[in-house]
């Protein structure tokens, strides 16, 4: 790891036993809670504002705006819901954080709950993450035992209860409103968004003011309170307060064909080339880089000419892709783009909740065409049909899942996705049939469905 990358979240990542509260307490553990409880709500939210923190789950929405949206002086209960439903292919950083540093999340939750006057916090963890859930539950139990949770925390008069809630296998539940439905015991389907419905900060779970934030976002409250928002914002790109900026650090999951895949904390704005070739050690088996996916499976891929792009929200946005959840996937020259996209389309078709027609029908249509091309039965007009369908899903689906399926193929507003960069590969497959390499793509199998 290059030494110039400050480690705010991962500062004590390598300390043995840091998942235990006694070890954690010896390494500044719960200092931020002690400090936060001496501050008033506005002061905490102001530090978050100064930090320039943007939601680390994928959307990049300024965190302080969400927190500020919680109504003042309402007698309704307020809730903090932590989104630990990490299901975006390529993303594994929240799992790592919960496994290795569970108290960082619990501490962040306490600060956030104090800031939004919430007395109950639910950590919604995807069903597959049984081990991380155990780590978080252990941390919660230890925090109760030491008086950081429960009644009258550290004599401040503040009461807080924290619960783990397990999902049960549905990518859709990572979407904010679907996650809230799931938490309330429903199918994980999205709700209406404003203007036709109130924001969750007004009416979220159980019709009460609710903040939904990603694991990493909440954990970042700890270094922000410890060091102060202005100090946290000293690294990154853009000028704080002057338009959109990418301040601070970001956890990334580096995966695919790199020599040293892993979860890393990087300063926002680090060039992609440095991440892949220095932090990641370069391409596995010294093959050639074919393309990379910057922010998880829903973000359009980028060819090597974008290697010098700074890894931040604005610069990646300008390329026609996105920073997303911080999942940098690297692919070497051996990868077939249509084959990869076929697998991905199967994923989105399977995970579509079925609520809206563009996504439900569109994703399945994308699958059928891809399957046909892969089986050697592609038609020349299929490529434009794929683009047409994608463009008809994009912006027309109920939630972002439809967009997430369309973007890898057809791109974001700039219109540059897999088909734009690798159209010849599709054309060749269609011209030559499957080229003797027919591979049936078995759909996802489940017991009894």
């Amino acid at each position: 790891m290059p030494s110039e990358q400050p480690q705010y979240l991962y500062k004590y990542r390598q300390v043995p036993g840091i998942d235990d509260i006694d070890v954690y307490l010896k390494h500044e553990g719960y200092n931020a809670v002690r400090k936060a409880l001496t501050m008033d709500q506005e002061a905490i939210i102001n530090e978050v504002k100064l930090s320039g923190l943007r939601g680390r789950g994928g959307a990049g929405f300024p965190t302080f705006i969400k927190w500020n949206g919680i109504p003042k002086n309402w007698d309704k209960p307020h809730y903090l819901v932590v989104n630990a439903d990490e299901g975006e292919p390529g993303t594994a950083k929240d799992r790592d954080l919960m496994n290795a540093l569970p108290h960082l999340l619990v501490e962040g939750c306490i600060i956030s709950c104090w800031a939004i006057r919430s007395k109950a916090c639910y950590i919604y963890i995807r069903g597959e993450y049984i081990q991380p859930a155990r780590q978080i539950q252990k941390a919660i139990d230890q925090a109760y035992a030491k008086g950081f949770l429960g009644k009258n925390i550290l004599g401040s008069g503040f009461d807080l209860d924290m619960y783990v809630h397990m999902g049960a296998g549905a990518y859709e539940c990572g979407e904010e409103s679907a996650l809230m439905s799931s938490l309330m015991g429903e199918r994980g389907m999205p709700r209406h968004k404003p203007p036709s419905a109130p924001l969750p900060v007004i009416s979220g779970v159980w019709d009460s003011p609710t903040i939904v934030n990603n694991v990493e976002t909440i954990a970042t409250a700890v270094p922000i309170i410890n060091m102060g928002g202005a100090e946290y914002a000293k690294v990154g790109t853009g000028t704080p307060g002057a338009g959109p900026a990418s301040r601070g650090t970001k956890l990334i999951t580096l995966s695919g064909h790199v020599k040293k895949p892993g979860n890393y904390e990087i300063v926002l704005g680090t060039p992609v080339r440095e991440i892949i070739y220095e932090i990641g050690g370069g391409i596995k088996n010294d093959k050639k880089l074919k393309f990379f996916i910057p922010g998880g499976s829903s973000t359009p891929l980028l060819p090597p000419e974008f290697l010098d792009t700074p890894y931040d929200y604005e610069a990646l946005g300008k390329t026609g892709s996105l920073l997303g959840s911080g999942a940098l996937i690297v692919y070497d020259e051996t990868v077939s783009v249509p084959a990869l996209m076929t697998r991905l389309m199967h994923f989105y078709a399977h995970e579509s909740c079925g609520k809206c027609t563009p996504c439900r029908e569109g994703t399945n249509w994308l699958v059928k065409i891809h399957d046909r091309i892969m089986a050697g039965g592609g038609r020349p007009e299929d490529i434009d049909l794929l683009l047409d369908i994608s463009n008809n899903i994009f912006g027309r689906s109920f939630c972002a899942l439809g967009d997430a399926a369309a973007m890898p193929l057809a791109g974001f507003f700039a219109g540059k996705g897999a088909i734009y960069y690798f159209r010849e590969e599709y054309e060749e497959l269609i011209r030559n049939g499957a080229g003797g390499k027919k591979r049936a793509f078995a759909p996802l199998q489940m017991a009894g469905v």
Partner: protein
Amino acid sequence: MLTEEVYKKIDTLIAKYPTKKAALLPALWVAQAANDNWLPREAMADVAKYLGLAPAYVEGVATFYTMYNKAPVGRHHLEVCHNIVCMVVGADELIDHIGGKLGVGRGETTPDRKFTLNTAECLGACANAPCMMVGDTYYEDLTTEKVDEILADLARK
């Protein structure tokens, strides 16, 4: 068909939420764990009755989520990730390898009901791909040799 013990566990779950309905997902987990890792209709109906919900509603919720098994599964439920990271580092070959060793295809259970082989969508261990989940355990950075050891180990359990 649910036992007193299961209902007691569900009671502790209900206490965590402002509504009974919110305890549905965790209650189904408890019911599934108590029933050889799958959810017969009767179990879903019992959960429905206990939480004051319609059986059709509970079934509707249960069928939405892939991790509630609606049919019996083997004692060891192998779920091998095959999404876009695991795929390019050998997941398909691993699935074929496991299927060949166990004599089953995707979604099938061995006749002795010891193993069920399934594919999974992104297990969120992409930095350690390929990976698979067996029950509550993740196995990461898999190779065919590693998989052989894991299968031999599981076969003894």
